[in-house]
């Protein structure tokens, strides 16, 4: 019996030790032990989500992601053979030899990790490291580092934006980052060897990465390229500060091209000036000048307050209270029809015609044309432009607004307004995104949500288009060089004084523009061109007109729009 008791006591003691240890393990700090157990031979690999492509309207990538590698070195292993390794690395990866040499020797004492090259195409990086290993050099490794590539360089760069080292820094890349970025996943498993081979039947988890969704734009890559080239050529030829051009599909409001010059190569944004990285077409305001006259005149016709053959006696000058309004050319008293006022771009004539409107009436129409409001197409930093509310507008301001002064717009706004006339008086909200997409700020944009609003009647739009045909007429108009051979073209020139943003005064420079559409009797495309501050003399017709003609000719051919063989406008310009 005694032996039995002693035995029980011993067993009880041992068990209580076990119990105490159990409490220690499970009660005091269970997590750290669990973590220790898990980390024993555990491999944790981040599975990087692939960033969604930015596509053009035909699915051709404007920006795409490819697998890349970062090549790094452990100086404690590479320092001895640094020159040999550096030579091979600089040969293969085209990196600077001396910088590589410094990295291989360690930029500071005790360094164990130095970047050699970032965003190296995966195949090149692994091949290079394999070659190094074959030669017996150790200490150079690779890790995942996705590459964002812009295959067409500067094409649509102002819209697409660009990536910084790890984060988007501008354009669609930043506006739609949530959609494009996707969510990274992670895989963990138990490994037995340094080669990280999974031990079967051991705990392993995989959280699949969710790749970013592609963003399809309405841009046509080739057309965008062509537009940029033609625009750049003109900007260089006239030594202009900048220029923008827009091509809209008249019926759908899709923006086929939105070009800015100067632009930048999205693959190397750091080489460009900072002010060239955004889209000037969307962020800069300017006074549209005479192109705005077509909005005023079509509104007047819609309201039944004017008609194309209406006769006006246009004096040499028009005194309005303390200000005198003049025309761009010196003339005596002349007799122009409303069509002639548009064809000759007479300020005085437009003011006389607009006298039928009160300021609120004119402003209401302009607002319906989209002036003074953002187009909200998904471009960051868009300006709303300036349109004084009708009830605060003086009659002097109204006179100037009627021919495009004292009102500011952005390029797409103005193009969409001209497009409303092309589209039979219905304004289609312009869009840059095909389908629909949600910006990071939660704004839904795209062709699916594009709104249509009737601004002026079909008859008023048609009559205005007829008058605009006269603008490119070689005898009656001011912009014969905007014609496209074989097609009926309707357009309007604009030569506006530029406001110095610092002083708020006209500084003597001009913004030359041309907006129009073709075929005039069944419009398919609207093209709007602005050249800011050229240093060579010229007007909207002679500088922006040829750009319009070239782009329009190209887009009509590209989309196979045959000439309509319609009859040209026979409206009289004088009486």
């Amino acid at each position, binding site marked *: 019996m005694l032996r039995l008791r002693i035995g029980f006591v011993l067993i009880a003691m041992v068990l209580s030790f076990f119990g105490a240890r159990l409490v220690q393990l499970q009660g005091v700090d269970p997590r750290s032990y669990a973590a220790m157990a898990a980390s024993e031979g555990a491999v944790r690999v981040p599975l990087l989500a692939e960033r969604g492509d930015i596509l053009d309207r035909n699915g051709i990538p404007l920006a795409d992601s490819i697998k890349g590698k970062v090549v790094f070195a452990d100086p404690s292993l590479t320092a001895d053979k640094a020159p040999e390794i550096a030579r091979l690395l600089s040969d293969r990866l085209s990196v600077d030899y001396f910088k590589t040499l410094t990295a291989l020797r360690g930029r500071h004492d005790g360094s164990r990790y130095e970047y050699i090259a970032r965003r190296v*195409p*995966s195949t090149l990086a692994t091949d290079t490291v394999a070659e190094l290993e074959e030669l017996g050099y150790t200490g150079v490794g690779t890790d995942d580092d996705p590459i964002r590539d812009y295959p067409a360089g500067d094409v649509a760069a102002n819209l697409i934006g660009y990536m910084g080292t790890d984060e988007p820094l501008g354009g669609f890349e930043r506006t739609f980052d949530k959609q494009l970025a996707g969510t990274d996943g992670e895989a963990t498993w138990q490994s037995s060897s340094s080669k990280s081979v999974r031990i079967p039947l051991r705990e392993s988890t995989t959280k699949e990465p969710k790749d970013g969704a592609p963003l399809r734009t309405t841009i046509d890559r080739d057309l965008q390229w062509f537009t940029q080239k033609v625009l750049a050529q003109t900007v260089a030829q006239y030594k202009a500060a900048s220029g923008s051009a827009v091509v809209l599909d008249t019926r759908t409001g899709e923006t086929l091209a939105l070009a800015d010059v100067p632009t930048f190569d999205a693959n190397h944004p750091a080489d460009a000036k900072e002010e060239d990285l955004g889209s000037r077409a969307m962020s800069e305001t300017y006074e549209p000048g005479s192109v705005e006259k077509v909005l005023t005149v079509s509104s007047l016709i819609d309201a039944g307050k004017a008609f194309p053959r209406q006769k006006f006696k246009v004096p040499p000058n028009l005194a309005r209270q303390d200000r005198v309004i003049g025309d761009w050319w010196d003339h005596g008293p002349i007799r122009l029809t409303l069509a002639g006022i548009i064809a000759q771009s007479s300020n005085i004539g437009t003011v006389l015609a607009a006298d039928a409107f009160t300021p609120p009436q004119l402003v209401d129409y302009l607002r319906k044309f989209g002036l003074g409001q953002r187009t909200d197409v998904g471009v960051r930093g868009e300006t709303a432009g300036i349109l004084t509310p009708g009830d605060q507008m003086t009659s002097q301001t109204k006179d100037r607004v009627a021919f495009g002064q004292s009102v500011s717009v952005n390029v797409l706004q103005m193009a969409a307004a001209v497009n409303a006339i092309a589209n039979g008086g219905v304004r289609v909200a312009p869009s840059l995104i095909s389908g629909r997409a949600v910006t990071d700020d939660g704004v839904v944009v795209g062709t699916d949500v594009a709104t249509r609003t009737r601004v002026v009647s079909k008859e008023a739009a048609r009559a205005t288009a007829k008058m605009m045909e006269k603008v490119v007429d070689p005898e009656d108009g001011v912009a014969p060089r905007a014609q*496209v051979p074989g097609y009926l073209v309707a357009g309007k020139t604009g030569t506006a004084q530029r406001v110095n943003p610092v002083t708020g005064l006209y500084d003597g420079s001009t913004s030359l523009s041309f907006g129009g559409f073709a075929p005039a009797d069944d419009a398919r495309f609207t093209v709007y061109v602005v050249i800011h501050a050229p240093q060579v003399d010229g007007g909207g017709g002679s500088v922006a007109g040829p750009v319009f003609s070239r782009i329009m000719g*190209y887009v009509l051919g590209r989309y196979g729009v045959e000439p309509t063989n319609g009859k040209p406008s026979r409206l009289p310009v004088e009486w």
Partner: protein
Amino acid sequence: MSSPALQARTRVTRIAQEAVDKARLTVVPRMRTRAPRVPFVTLVSLVLVGGIVGLLLFNTSMQQASFAASNLEEQADTLAAREQTLRMELDELRNPQRVATEAQQMGMVIPSAPVFLDLKTGKTSGVRTPATRENAIQLLPPAPIKPKVLAPDPTIVKVPATTTEVPPTTTDAKQRATDGRQKQRKNRSR
């Protein structure tokens, strides 16, 4: 209720008594049937050994499959990366800028207006405009304006030799050597 039960018990006892009388139990001599043990042990051992070996083989094959899987995964990764690199190269080859440059080098020009050919009637529509060299678009930005003279002559300022004296602390040995004679002369004249 209890009386019929009592009756039953007495009856049963009687019957049991008869049975006991009939079957008198005697001790049966122990009959040991010694079943052959060897087959059983062999069977068990075989099952055990078979199980262990099977498990081992299974484990090994799983390990091998795991190695094969990670090798294949690596290969798939490499191939995917190669495909992407090739796709990138293709995209760069399709770059409109490159295509246009090649086309212009072959003498092609983008026309200023299109002309359509109806294949059925063989008639053209549109105005035929000649595409000349002037219609070619500028593919590269104009070259930066260079200075008129690329290697301007060095500006030489002639200093009268007599007015300045080379200080004695000049470190330039060559200068001193070439000027040596002159200096001596100067010293003499002083």
